[in-house]
């Protein structure tokens, strides 16, 4: 039972993390190759506050806030650069984060932060808490997509310049996407810190950023349900198959490539193509 609880908790955290990226990249079309940095900020914030004696639940809002602040800063830079430039800038953020944390002794430096206090919920309670939060984030995603803001996000993803011509304040919406997405990434980081009870800079590097991107891409950029499924399945794969555990990166990398090569719309696109072939063409890649 213990094993299943740990696995389900991991899955719930991954789902929150993937959905947080889906908001930025999927909904709003802003590619981010450095999303793990925001998870890292949340994780470190929660871990340090927890060690300073804060109760678990009180660390969550602070972790989200700090990740959100960094997210808005990066978002501000995204207003100046687009497409390829943005991809490289966001990639830079993750290297900056890892490089910074490694040199900071008060953040544990190379050694990482260990003996993060217990959340006091019990393993089962924490799992339920994680799943409830994941469900909440999924609900929030669906809700956002239906609001005016969600539609503007979609418009920006499709054609930014047209939205500008229509008089939409594009920068404001881009910042909003970054703010919400990175705050949620911070939340997943805080949960991860308490789940693992040990974190290091290498938990939040470029590969982790790509792993979460592959979850979003594999599910189908922009689709909530399929991203949830993809995040849950991909995060559990290494645990299910020992072989994959050893070749995890080969599998992730290969999947990422094959998916883009043969079905850029992810599983969602594939399903759409099989069940509604006529509509597949207009489907967003």
């Amino acid at each position: 039972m213990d094993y299943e609880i740990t696995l389900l908790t991991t899955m719930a955290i991954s789902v929150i993390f993937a959905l947080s990226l889906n908001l930025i990249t999927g909904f709003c079309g802003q590619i981010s190759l450095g999303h793990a940095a925001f998870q890292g900020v949340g994780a470190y914030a929660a871990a340090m506050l927890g060690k300073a004696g804060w109760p678990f639940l009180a660390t969550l809002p602070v972790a989200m806030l700090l990740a959100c602040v960094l997210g808005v800063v990066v978002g501000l830079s995204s207003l100046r650069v687009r497409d390829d430039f943005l991809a490289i800038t966001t990639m830079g953020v993750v290297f900056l984060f890892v490089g910074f944390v490694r040199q900071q002794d008060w953040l544990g430096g190379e050694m990482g932060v260990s003996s993060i206090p217990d959340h006091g919920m019990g393993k089962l309670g924490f799992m339920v808490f994680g799943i409830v939060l994941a469900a909440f984030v999924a609900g929030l995603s669906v809700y956002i997509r239906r609001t005016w803001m969600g539609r503007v996000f979609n418009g920006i993803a499709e054609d930014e310049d047209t939205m500008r011509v229509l008089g939409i304040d594009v920068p404001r919406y881009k910042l909003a996407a970054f703010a919400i997405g990175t705050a949620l990434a911070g939340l997943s980081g805080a949960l991860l810190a308490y789940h693992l009870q040990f974190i290091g800079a290498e938990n939040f590097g470029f590969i982790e950023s790509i792993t979460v991107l592959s979850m979003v891409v594999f599910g189908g950029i922009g689709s909530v349900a399929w991203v949830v499924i993809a995040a849950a399945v991909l995060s559990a794969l290494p645990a299910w198959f020992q072989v994959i555990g050893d070749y995890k990166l080969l599998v992730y990398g290969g999947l990422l490539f094959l998916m883009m090569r043969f079905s850029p719309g992810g599983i969602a696109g594939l399903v759409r193509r099989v069940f509604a072939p006529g509509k597949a063409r207009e489907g967003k890649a």
Partner: protein
Amino acid sequence: MLYVELVVQGLVQGSIYAMIALGLTLVYGLLRILHVAHASLFTLGAYAGVLITNASGSLALAFVGAALIAGLAGVLMYRLAYQPLLSQPPFVALIASIGLYIASEEAFRIAFGAQGLSFATPQMQGQVALGGGLQLSRIEIWMMVGTVLIIGVLAWLQSRTRIGVACQATVTDPQMAESFGISLRQVRDINFFVGSALAGFAGVWVALLNNLVEPTMGSVPSYKALAIIVLGGLGSVPGTLAASLVLGVVEAFGTIYIGQFLDRNAIAFAFLIVVLMVRPQGLFARR
């Protein structure tokens, strides 16, 4: 004296970056693809270099072999991976490229082991005194000479030969070039071959410098090379060259003065982000 030393160290590092980044610029200029898997070809070249040297004992053969193998692999990559994706939005090719890169890094580990390979007999050892207490290894000196030579040849090819002019025309206006009878396909193949061969070449140099080839050796240069082509203004060859050298020097000074706050990679990307904030089009773009 410290300043001079730092600048020289920076230029050495910068010339490695230049060789990797130039190939990337060629690809970007033509296809507008951020070709992350370029680093796989760099690593492939390094492995080929060590394996050929150890088998044949000839370093010259290793350079030729590595450039050839990396070049052909690059063309293959273009045909199988990128060509079918050209009609998709740009991030599709970018993500495919990242996937390819991660998978290849892992494939190298499986094929050649995690510990890496070394030259059976270390090549080109020895230090050369440049006067004033300045010292460089023989490899570093040859590497800089090699970079200058290659860039010279490349510049000559671009401006003086049919194929070079065809390449430039294709970059400027693909449709017009095609209507003048230039085969886009051929130009792209050649471009990928040359760019990838350069990466393979650089791989052998780095293998010589460290006397070690590891599966992950491509990661840092690959990200740096991306940062460099952005700094250079995406697609501009002289810009890339200048940005490589500038970044090498900035890193050299950075590690001395702010090394306690940020490591080398972080300094490079901090510099990149600051530059992009001020000049979103890159340092050397003419826009």
